[in-house]
């Protein structure tokens, strides 16, 4: 009983601390940190949406960047060519990406995991190459001059946009965690663990897979829209397979099939190279090695590691807990 109350208190404290950090960030730190933080948040969206596929439904997509790209281009083109307001661009990006996801899912979800991975990778490259060669999307020159959203009759500044991104990320992550705990989430887990068993229980596997695919692509599209709006200039070369691999790394390192895993993975992989800039030459190597190591030694990612087993960390935690307890009493 005591334990439970304590944990609840702790959880509140954590949420509060997180909120404060996130909210004061633009005021304490410079625009540079803000920029990085927004990238990290966008990657949280991407990693969480990919995690829906890999972690919850056992669908391995290697072409997630394709949907991100569709979202970014939809939003950018609507904003620059048709002067649409941000809200429309934003949701249109999600919808179009979801549509693309539905199409890809419809044709490719029948394949087994490995073939699906390669098919999606191929499709994402096809999307990129078509965009690169099409005049409508401005070809290789990219789309320039994408405006920040407007409100109260003026365009947002970067700090305000930062808060907008924060709100969106929080909503998406909370919804994902709700989904994971719901009946649907449990059904997906069953499909992931044993497709045949799920089928024998009368689960319409294709329907569920399709649903999660569409949802995941919708989120990736939203992330694309945020990216395009924030960076104000996009180019098809930003959407290569490397991005897919980075997202996969985030999910694998953070922890597949958990809500916090991709969030942690995204923040860590975005921030780490920033403050160890002298290591930036090693950035991609570290990604590669981290994937291999985490799959081998921590298949559940950082979230799944029992940190308390490591003596030093355990001692630190104990120290911290006694202090907290003292304050409480």
């Amino acid at each position: 009983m005591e334990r439970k109350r304590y944990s609840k208190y702790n959880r509140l404290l954590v949420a509060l601390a997180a909120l404060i950090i996130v909210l004061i960030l633009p005021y304490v730190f410079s625009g540079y940190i803000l920029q990085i933080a927004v990238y990290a948040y966008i990657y949280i969206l991407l990693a969480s949406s990919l995690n829906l596929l890999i972690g919850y439904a056992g669908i391995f997509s290697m072409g997630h960047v394709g949907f991100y790209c569709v979202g970014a281009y939809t939003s950018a083109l609507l904003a620059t060519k048709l002067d649409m307001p941000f809200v429309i661009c934003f949701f249109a990006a999600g919808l179009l990406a979801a549509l693309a996801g539905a199409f890809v899912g419809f044709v490719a979800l029948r394949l087994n995991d490995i073939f699906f991975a390669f098919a999606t990778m191929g499709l994402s490259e096809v999307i990129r190459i078509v965009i690169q060669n099409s005049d409508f999307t401005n070809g290789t020159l990219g789309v320039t001059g994408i405006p920040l959203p407007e409100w109260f009759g003026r365009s947002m500044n970067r700090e305000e946009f930062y808060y907008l991104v924060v709100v969106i990320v929080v909503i998406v992550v909370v919804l994902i965690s709700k989904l994971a705990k719901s009946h649907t989430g449990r059904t997906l887990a069953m499909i992931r663990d044993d497709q045949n068993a799920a089928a024998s229980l009368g689960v319409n596997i294709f329907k569920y897979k399709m649903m999660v695919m569409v949802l995941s692509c919708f989120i990736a599209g939203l992330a694309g829209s945020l990216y395009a709006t924030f960076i104000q200039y996009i180019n098809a070369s930003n959407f290569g397979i490397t991005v897919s691999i980075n997202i996969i790394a985030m999910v694998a390192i953070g922890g597949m099939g958990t809500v916090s895993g991709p969030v942690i993975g995204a923040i860590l992989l975005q921030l780490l190279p920033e403050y160890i800039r002298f290591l930036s030459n090693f950035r991609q190597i570290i990604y590669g090695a981290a994937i291999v190591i985490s799959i081998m030694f921590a298949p559940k990612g950082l979230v799944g590691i029992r940190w308390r087993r490591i003596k030093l960390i355990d001692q630190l935690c104990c120290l911290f807990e006694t202090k907290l307890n003292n304050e409480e009493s």
Partner: protein
Amino acid sequence: MTMFFQQLVNGITQGGLYALLAIAYSLVYGVMGLVNFSTGSIYMLGAMSSWLVCKYIIESFWLSVLISFGVGFVVAFVLEKIAFSAIRGATRIASLICTIGFSQFINEAVALIFGKATQGMSTFFDQELFAFLGVHISVMQAVLVVTVIIILVALQFFVYRTRIGLAIRTVSMDEKTAGLMGINVNRTISIAFSLSGACAAIAGLMGAVYYRSFSAYMGWMPGIKSFSAAVFGGLSSMPGAILGGYLMGIIENFGVQVFSTGYRDVISFIVMIVFLLVRPQGILGSKKKVKL
């Protein structure tokens, strides 16, 4: 007409490289039902080792072949121990992600050591040409085509006429029953995997010689395209993979003629996707063995 034959020659030369890589995929898929995503990286390592040999030791084509073979074999052996043996029982997705990580690691490590820029490779053969009715075939192309064919024939001999080859075929048909026949399944898988690495590395060497350059990311596209080629011809059948490799090379070259080089990569991806959807077992593969 000249153009037609010239594109055919180009396609066959390039197709040879794809065929070797496709075999590499097919060997691994056969014994494990899995795909080694880092095949392209091993291709690059093969190119790298021959580049090193030529730069620092001696400019010898055949020595390069030998060294590339060895490097590919050893790297793939180690990879199998890491990504597959060590985590056997983990999901197939985990293994695939592991090979992606490995591939990333190899590419970037090489990029760090030797730079990301393209490096020149020595010329082994004169550019003497056989010009026949306006169709030009360089000595290098000829050597390349012949070498690839020799390797493919040797491989077929190995798989169909030797004891280890018999074990590989048996394991790829039924792993469990193979064990009951007294076949060491793990060792067989390991050998097939290493052999696949050796094939990929030799393809890399050929690529480096043909294009006379080596760079850290050179394995990326051939790696993916030859997977498409393997799917096209039949991932579960070695002759299928070879056929797929050659056909893919030829289709790509004619595709360039008809469309444009900018869409070259799209061609192979679309062929792969169409085949995955319509005929996942490929041209020569049998339906039963493709685990869908």
